[in-house]
């Protein structure tokens, strides 16, 4: 496999292999010197067209721990305004000699274009609303260390319509046999759910006592201006994981969030930091998963079918 653009690029076997490989890197990350020479000499360019220090650092750390050389192109507004197109930038980077490009871009399909323009491997770090495959992988890795995924009931709560995390997670969880329910007001669900392997509820209270995992999505405040929901307060009242709602969760239910969290909005602060929350584990597993992806694409060449 040459690129990881979306969970669609994986089947249940290759997805599971990738998670198994990630476990090895979880172990590496626990050492005093969490570094292996496996990809020494490989050059990874990170091309982030959206502000995201967390994800970019996670990828760059992953690359460095594999002994890659890392080139950072954190494209600020000014260089985009200079008029250099994505194509120009990719061609410039490629002339410098790279083995992989990690790209985050506000336009869906940008990584697919980049894959046409370069011989390097392309890893999608998030494209518009479309996909964020490494997030889904690290969520699956985190979850399976606590629960058997097959038959697990997962609620994904929040702005699914605009969420690449939701789209990738729905696909990954479906591949792994989990049952997904989307919880959101109609204006924040995808316009069409045709072909989505999910159930839907507009009432969080209806489903909260029945699910094993609650995956919360970040509230994107700019959507309020688009008349997609009335007020933040109403959103929190109906769809937030408040302390009152959290009390109605199953005793061993787990809580996840891709970050960064709006404490007090989609989740109460005490719940976010409480014992059921897997958030810090998600972040830690992110580096291991990204190491596994890089190793698969640049290292073995054949670990993923």
């Amino acid at each position, binding site marked *: 496999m040459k690129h990881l653009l979306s969970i669609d690029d994986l089947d249940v076997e290759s997805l599971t292999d990738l998670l198994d*490989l990630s*476990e090895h890197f979880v*172990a590496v990350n626990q050492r005093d010197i969490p570094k292996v020479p*496996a990809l020494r000499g490989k050059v990874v360019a990170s091309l982030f067209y959206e502000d995201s220090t967390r994800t970019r650092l996670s990828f760059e750390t992953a690359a460095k721990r594999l002994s890659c050389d890392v080139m950072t192109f954190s494209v600020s507004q000014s260089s985009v305004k200079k008029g250099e197109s994505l194509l120009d930038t990719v061609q410039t980077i490629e002339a410098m000699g790279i083995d992989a490009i990690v790209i985050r871009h506000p336009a869906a399909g940008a990584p697919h274009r980049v894959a046409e323009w370069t011989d390097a491997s392309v890893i999608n770090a998030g494209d518009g609303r479309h996909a964020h495959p490494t997030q889904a992988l690290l969520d699956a890795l985190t979850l399976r260390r606590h629960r058997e995924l097959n038959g697990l009931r997962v609620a994904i709560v929040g702005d699914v319509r605009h969420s690449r995390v939701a789209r990738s997670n729905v696909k990954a969880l479906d591949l792994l046999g989990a049952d997904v329910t989307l919880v959101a007001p109609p204006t924040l669900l995808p316009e069409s759910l045709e072909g989505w392997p999910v159930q839907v509820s507009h009432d969080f209270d209806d489903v909260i006592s029945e699910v094993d995992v609650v995956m919360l999505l970040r509230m994107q405040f700019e959507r309020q201006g688009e008349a997609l929901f009335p007020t933040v307060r109403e959103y929190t009242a109906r769809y937030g994981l408040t302390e009152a709602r959290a009390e109605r969760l199953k005793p061993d239910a787990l809580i996840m969030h891709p970050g960064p969290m709006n404490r007090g909005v989609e989740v109460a602060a005490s719940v976010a930091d409480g014992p059921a929350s897997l958030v810090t584990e998600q972040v830690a597993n992110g580096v291991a998963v990204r190491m596994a992806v890089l190793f698969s694409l640049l*290292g*073995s060449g054949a670990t993923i079918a």
Partner: protein
Amino acid sequence: MSVLDAGDLRRAQTRIAHEIVERNRGAADVVLVGLYTRGLAIARRLTAAIAEFEDLDVPVGALDVSFYRDDIGLRAVTPTGPTEVPVDITGRVVVLVDDVLYTGRTVRAAMDALTELGRPRAIQLAVLVDRGHRELPIRPDFVGKNLPTRIGEDVRVRLHEVDGGLDSVELRAETIDGGEEGMVPA
């Protein structure tokens, strides 16, 4: 063609176990580190053998060298198991254990992997079979059998706890297209 049978292997293991203890003046600060998968099995056998005559429990660790190989990107590399060494190797004598020593590249990778875990006082190498054709300046300290081979030939070690059946070491001549001929199991 079978070059070692179960009896030969047992005698070689016992001899190696004694040699390790002799060379290291007792085995008090020795740790056996076996490479997945058969090296680990042999290391466990060695520690059991040592326990019989020396009344000493030599710790055994497992080493995965996938991330240290020099052929990553040239061929499929899949990690085999977690690297787990139950003691701190700093200051100790580490005896690396593997089934077959050939080009020496795996041992080179194993030494790199080891130095990530600590700074041993010394590293020694124990192998069941040395088939020659070294590509790096690496030599074993303890050898079960020296076996001259041709480059196209394949040496297969079978261990009861890994492969089932009886222990054996076989030598197979491979044809040009990778098929096998002349194979007669022990």
